[in-house]
């Protein structure tokens, strides 16, 4: 349980090239001495059952790969608001939906941000990050640490 502490979730498919960005960064963050007591998850996708832990967190930071036309390795930090989102769900849900479920079912949606990294190659069967995305990983980790510590400083 998150118990009033920040929750970091890196998600993506480790077998789809750059889509592994979230899990790779989450693995590093889970061992980072600058984040004692912070819960870090590495998952394939977000799911509704995460709402309870998200509701108990003081802050949510999600890490994901995006294809948005930016140069590979470009890092963007966006605020996430609780929203029902589209109906076009398969088995996964968006971070906005998890936040909305946390609010509706458990009474609290913490402040949340997405650290999105522009990627270029999400081919099946590849375990490697492309060079530009791999080079961005240390900055992604530092960005998450900064966001979490900012939260702690304000707490």
């Amino acid at each position: 349980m998150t118990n009033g502490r920040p929750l970091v979730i890196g998600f993506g498919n480790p077998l789809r090239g750059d889509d592994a960005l979230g899990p790779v960064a989450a693995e590093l963050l889970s061992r980072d001495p600058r984040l004692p007591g912070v819960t870090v998850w590495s998952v394939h996708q977000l799911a509704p059952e995460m709402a309870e832990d998200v509701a108990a967190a003081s802050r949510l930071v999600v890490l994901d790969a995006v294809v948005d036309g930016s140069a590979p390795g470009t890092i963007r930090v966006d605020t996430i608001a609780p929203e029902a989102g589209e109906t076009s769900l398969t088995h996964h849900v968006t971070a906005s939906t998890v936040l909305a479920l946390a609010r509706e079912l458990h009474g609290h949606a913490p402040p949340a941000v997405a650290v999105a990294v522009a990627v270029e190659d999400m081919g099946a069967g590849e375990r490697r990050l492309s060079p530009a995305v791999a080079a961005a990983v240390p900055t992604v980790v530092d960005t998450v640490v900064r966001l979490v510590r900012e939260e702690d400083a304000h707490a």
Partner: protein
Amino acid sequence: MARDIVIDPVTRIEGHSRITISLDDAGRVADAHFAVTQFRGFEKLCQGRPFAEMPSLMARICGICPVSHLIASSKACDDIMAVRPPKTGADLRTLMNLAQMVQSNALSLFHLSSPDLLFGFDADPATRNIVGVARLHPQLAKDGIFLRKFGQHTIFLLGGKRIHPSWIVPGGVDAPLDAAKRDEILAMIPEAYAAVERALVWFKANLMDWVEEAGEFGSFPSAYMSLVGDDGTVEHYDGRVRVVDAERRTLAEFDGRDYADYIGEGIDDRSFLKPTYFKPLGPVDGVYRVGTLARAVVADSFGTPRADEELMEFRERFGAAPQSSFHYHHTRLLDILHSVEKMERLLRADDILSDRVASKAQVNRNVGIGVSEAPRGTLIHHYAVDDDGIIQTANLVIATGHNATAMNRSVQQVASKYVQGETITEGMLNRVEAVIRCYDPCLSCSTHAMGQMPLHIQLLSPDGLVLDEVRR
């Protein structure tokens, strides 16, 4: 002029698909077709791999039902080694499979279909979603989330991972269950009963709201197929394959290793989905359905008291072999209830903590076939290996393939009722998609073939004339 209405992609199912509805000159539905437009290739990529790698490889087919592939694949490997797992090994595999039945059926009913059932098919999509369910009926949403979590956490406790656990191996499982984990799972069982039984009360109380849909959602006579145990009860892990007709008369009952004598596999030029048929009746009349509805029809009973009481009520209301695919929703709850009961029974058995959980052997046969029930229906893995155990060929027959012909008929039936003129309404769109979701198709699982991919490219003039076409 005749025209096509294309719904692409279909939402809230697993994978990618396209539905094409063809209208005649008078604007009536002439044809409807459900196509899978993604391609995976697992049958091809596993060739040349050692057979013992197959369970882990095949689990990657799907993020929703990897346990089903682990089990069918491991059973095929057991067959290659000519061994059966020790009783505790088989029971632990069954336990994980049942946990997956709970989480997957909960995902389908509570997360994907309940918005339609709760708000109606014509409701605003902005509210007709899982968050809308949480707002209007929080207990239902909490129950769905709990059942998902219960199944996923049980899989995690047994296999160390929620998705793609590698604990199920050829010959059994690779580690016994310890008392602490058993007790942790048992501690969740009472809430699992409460959640599914609350959902059943809600579903049955609202049955009358859906009478119209139940009458039109894939309502036609067909055969049904599923595994049954030696005593005729529902079986998810082992047993024999039974096929019954629309009157619930047994058409065939056979060992899963003989599946090719009874199940034919077809090629659909317009889809990567491989449709099947019951061979003795042929491709046209041999349509059958698999999955939760089929299990509730085919078996004599569930063999567990709570689920059997519900099954008796279900059969009193709808008959022993109801024709509408709408009843998949109701039978998902029965399947969950039975799974929880059977999990408790297995966990309370004296030998569930035994450390004899795997049999060891090398290649003793060149062919192995494994059959089990996945949440969506019967799953068959069929491998051929050389004397060194290297995979030569693999054939996977997946629940969504079994249901493919029934899904097409269902789409045509719903489209004929709701498509009028050339206007696509949200209500029509969602009803066509919803009838597909009754089957909870898993397209990731159903498009694993490579090398026999039908490719049909047509160049059409504005008035629909074929100018050129290529088949390969």
